[in-house]
């Protein structure tokens, strides 16, 4: 239910900001791009709109804050929160002797992080006495209204109405403060209105996540500092990728240059490529245990095939006219290898490296979810067992940022080291 509302709000912001921004800018949109027919597959035909990106990110945080009651989001933007305070409703009971009487129930609905005591109430007149109780926000509580009444259950005490509306076992009555239900045995059950905000245990507000980040950054988590957790994951990725490239690139070269190597390794590489590295985790655990070795082997395997295939296509993708040109300029086989084949394959190898780093990063987190003593994946897995949703969220965000950072770094290296990529 809340999900649908969030989706609706999201779509509304998307569409609304589109109209506002495009209307605002419509005055100066007579450049060449507006005349251009978009060719499908032409990447340069559509460039990403900066304003849209900024609004998109702000929207996510806004919705996150609004639906978690964040202090960082101004109160008027908050989605209705859970009811907190004194709730009251009236019940009418009937006894065996046919008499009916009413009394008021006062329930103190308190934030679950605080203790609370039931408020003092005047018992009132008649045989039905006023009650008081406490219920935590987002929770519910059984309220035994007959306990203090002069005619108890032994005299046939039955609640027949709430706030004047008739109620029967299994039924319910909605009040201003929440829902009053009746169990099969006739006991009232008060569920205070939950509003539209998420409980912190499902989705903590952004500030809680940031606070956690600050706490864990200074105190560590489960015996390791935050940097050790993240650094260890990164270290595993780099080591696994390094070995994977160390073996994979020469293997790919050999496959690109020799038909025997190609024939020998093609079936293996082509078979291993579609096997997701995650599917290898159980086997690697059986063979190498859950320690560091197992993880490095897993990441090595994840990077190996990608790098081999990238190097292979880099070598076999060389234009034959380049090789011919080099030959007729008097280059030897080795010189062609060094000055033509290798540089020509670098863009492909870089693309492979980018993919491999991404796959390795995903794989290491998954492997750490399964078994590890330290690492980003271990951190969120352990936290989830204790329902520390804020740590889980913090971990996911950090994993995403690091993965993104790795990709940006690889792109940057690509631009600097192989600027001729795709311009042959």
């Amino acid at each position, binding site marked *: 239910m809340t999900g649908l509302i969030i989706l609706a709000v999201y779509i509304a912001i998307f569409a609304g900001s589109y109209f506002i921004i495009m209307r605002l800018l419509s005055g100066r949109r007579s450049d060449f791009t507006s005349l251009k027919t978009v060719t499908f597959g032409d990447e340069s035909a559509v460039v990403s709109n900066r304003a849209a990106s900024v609004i998109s990110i702000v929207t996510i945080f806004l919705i996150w804050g609004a639906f978690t009651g964040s202090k960082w989001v101004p109160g008027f933007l908050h989605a209705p929160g859970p009811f907190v305070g004194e709730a009251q409703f009236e019940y009418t009971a009937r006894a065996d002797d046919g008499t009916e009487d009413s009394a008021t129930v006062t329930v103190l609905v308190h934030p679950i992080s605080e203790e609370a005591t039931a408020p003092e109430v005047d018992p009132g007149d008649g045989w039905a006495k006023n009650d008081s109780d406490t219920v935590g926000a987002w929770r519910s509580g059984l309220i035994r209204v007959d306990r203090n009444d002069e005619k108890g259950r032994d005299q046939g005490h039955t609640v027949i109405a709430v706030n004047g509306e008739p109620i029967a076992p299994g039924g319910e009555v909605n009040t201003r403060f929440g829902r009053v239900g009746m169990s099969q045995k006739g006991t009232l059950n008060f569920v205070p209105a939950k509003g539209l905000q998420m409980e912190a245990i499902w989705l903590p507000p952004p500030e809680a996540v940031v606070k956690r980040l600050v706490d864990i950054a200074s105190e560590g988590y489960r015996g390791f500092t935050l940097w050790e957790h993240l650094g260890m994951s990164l270290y595993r990725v780099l080591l696994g990728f390094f070995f994977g490239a160390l073996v994979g690139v020469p293997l790919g070269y050999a496959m690109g240059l020799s038909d025997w190597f190609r024939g020998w390794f093609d079936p293996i590489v082509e078979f291993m490529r579609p096997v997701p590295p995650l599917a290898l985790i159980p086997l690697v655990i059986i063979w190498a245990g859950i320690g560091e070795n197992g993880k490095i082997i897993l990441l090595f395997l994840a990077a190996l095939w990608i790098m081999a295939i990238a190097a292979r296509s880099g070598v076999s993708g060389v*234009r034959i*006219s*380049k090789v*011919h*040109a*080099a*030959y*007729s*300029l*008097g*280059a*030897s086989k080795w*010189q062609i290898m060094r*000055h*033509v084949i290798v*540089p*020509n394959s*670098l863009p492909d190898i870089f693309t492979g490296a980018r993919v491999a780093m991404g796959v390795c990063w995903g794989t290491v987190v998954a492997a750490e979810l399964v078994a590890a003593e330290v690492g980003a994946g271990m951190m969120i897995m352990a936290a989830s067992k204790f329902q520390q949703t804020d740590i889980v969220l913090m971990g996911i965000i950090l994993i995403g940022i690091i993965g993104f950072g790795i990709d940006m770094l690889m792109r940057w290296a690509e631009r600097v080291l*192989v*600027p*001729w990529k795709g*311009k*042959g």
Partner: protein
Amino acid sequence: MSGLALNNISMRFDLPNGGSVQALKDVTLNLAPGELMSVLGPSGCGKTTLLNIVAGFLAPTEGEITLNGHRVLGPDAERGMVFQQGALFEWMSVRDNVSFGPRMKGQRESKWAGNVDHLLDVVGLQDFKEKAIYELSGGMQQRVALARCLANDPDVILMDEPLGALDALTREKMQSLVLKLWKETGKTIILITHSVEEALLLGERLLVMAPRPGRIHKEYRLPFADMGVNADLREIKKHPDYASTREEILGMIWDMEEEIMGRTEAAQ
């Protein structure tokens, strides 16, 4: 015996489906040192195949080629090639491309630097020598390819449609450049082109090839290349002989194309 000699060259390609294509049949040809020959012919008549055989990238199924008396057995620095496009090394600067040949021979920079600089001047790329290949226009890239070939000082220069991808104006400038370099360096040049005009203007000798199997159809000796060394190419086009030869060759190639089309239609 000096010069380039092709003796009864035949080339048959075996196809994967068991059939074969006779790309060249009994091509015999002699080029004296310093001759410039342009080659014309309908598409698929074996021009590229012929050039690749002379370059040594392909071994002919029959016949042999000799250059200055010794047999051609593979690619070698004595026969340079200028490709249509995409054969430059885009990971090197313009200067590194041009000096590739001498560097591969292990020559010291002091030995080749002067010549490379001179060639960059000749092709008008002195200001671009440190630029990357992909920063140059198509015409500039072709000039780099030409300079790279010349820097290696080959005896024979083979060109496969080197100017095909250029616009009319750049093309005309390049044609003048080719003529100028030909006269200055005295290289033996074979130039394949699809443009009858280009073949007429540049070819001291002009070879028209016929398809299926690829063979020499007719050869001309023309005065225009010599004239063009010192004159405006556009003036030459007004020469009465130029126009008549052009019409003759165009008609010849037109007939061949007609015949090919007719044959493929009959086969269907």
